[in-house]
């Protein structure tokens, strides 16, 4: 359980050294993206167009913040992670088209995602679900927001963060997944619990 402080853009080397249960703090610029932004990022790539943000070495945060505009400036009030499994289907494609290096969310992702992380050199990190004000306190500034037509939660928020964390590496770039380890244990207990 090593601890790392990383700055964006992340290199493949930055994330290849991370293992399950390591703790990471990220500084720099991260992007929020949920169901609809994933869909659009993939559509943009498939049309051969460029997205409005630099995707090389990026950190994608599965989150839809509560934001407020004061005197023309956006402020993030609350910004915890959303359930990552909703992006299971889109993520292998996202990783195919873009050099995303880190995904931050909660609840874990599928085996297909684990394989894509391994192949492309990226990791999945967990942030405490619902710890939304703590997360918002790591946001120094809203750089910009793109695709606001998707609605506040689904838009792509470009956030400058400082020491965003603690993030726990739960799926590393070698295909290891903390969720799969635990699920095996829990599943093996289930039948005996039901027989009691």
């Amino acid at each position: 359980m090593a601890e790392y402080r990383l700055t964006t853009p992340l290199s493949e080397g930055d994330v290849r050294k991370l293992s399950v249960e390591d703790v990471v703090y990220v500084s720099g610029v991260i992007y929020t993206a949920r169901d609809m932004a994933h869909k659009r990022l993939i559509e943009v790539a498939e049309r051969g167009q460029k997205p409005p943000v630099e995707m090389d070495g990026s950190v994608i945060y599965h989150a839809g913040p509560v934001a407020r505009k004061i005197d023309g400036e956006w402020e993030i009030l609350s910004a915890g992670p959303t359930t990552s499994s909703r992006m299971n289907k889109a993520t292998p494609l996202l990783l195919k088209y873009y050099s995303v290096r880190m995904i931050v969310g909660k609840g874990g992702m599928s085996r297909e995602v684990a394989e894509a992380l391994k192949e492309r050199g990226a990791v999945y990190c967990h942030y405490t679900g619902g710890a939304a004000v703590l997360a918002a306190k790591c946001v120094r500034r809203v750089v910009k927001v793109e695709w606001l037509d998707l609605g506040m939660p689904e838009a792509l928020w470009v956030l400058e963060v400082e020491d965003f964390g603690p993030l726990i590496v739960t799926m590393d770039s070698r295909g290891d997944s903390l969720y799969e380890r635990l699920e095996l244990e829990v599943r093996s207990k289930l039948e005996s619990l039901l027989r009691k």
Partner: protein
Amino acid sequence: MRLGVIEEAALQLIKRASTVLPADVRSSLQRAYEEETSKLGKTQLKAILDNIVVAEQMGRPVCQDTGIVSFFVKSRGLDYKGLDEALRRATIRATKEVPLRPNAVHPLTRRNSEDNTGVHIPGITYIYENTDFIDLTVTLKGAGSENMSALYMASPGEGLDGVKRAVLETVVKAGGQPCPPIVVNVGIGGTVDLTFKLAKIAMTRPLGVRHLEKEIAELERELLALVNSTGIGPMGLGGKITALDVKIEYAHCHTASLPVGVNIQCWADRRATARIYPDGSWEVLS
């Protein structure tokens, strides 16, 4: 009853529910932190407790998913249309004033209404109570936990085993996704619409308050112990505290049916209740 009073009370309740967790939830999370032995699990409960404090101090939404707004109204008779409009206005105002995240979208076009209202939303459940006052409860239900809910049509022959299987399989399948430690609210019996209505009514009962019938109370305790022996733990990172409570409401059902509705609630169990008196005064109960 003046509808303006109901609107004002509802607005204050939404503000409270989104920024301050009920006392029973806070103490239950504190106890979970003290009892949890897994190292990773404890870090998650610590973050949760810290977040609750900061949210209250700053008057900010505890979780960015401020949920779908639902009201539960206990009264003996009301102007339903007027009430619907008052609660709708309160929701629109709260969306701007707290602010809440605009979450309500058309189910097919996914167009966001931007004010947390829409067709049949906010949800309103009327419960008959023969009292002069009105008890108004608001719940803010996030999608992460709602998405993990399930209906299980057990066969009557399975009986109690069917109920246990429904609860445990739903919880295990959900794993860390609904932000454990969760609260499991269960409706047993009825017809499917009623089954989930009962689960939702169980949701409005404070944690640690057992069902009035001894056998049901015992089943609540047993199911809580079972859920907590799965090892899912806080945020699904492993540990002994997977749920804060299991609550049950039941109804008679068809002799050939045994519906079990399992509604999962995340740790941010946001609800607030006010009592509104006939003279227009009101107070927050929890």
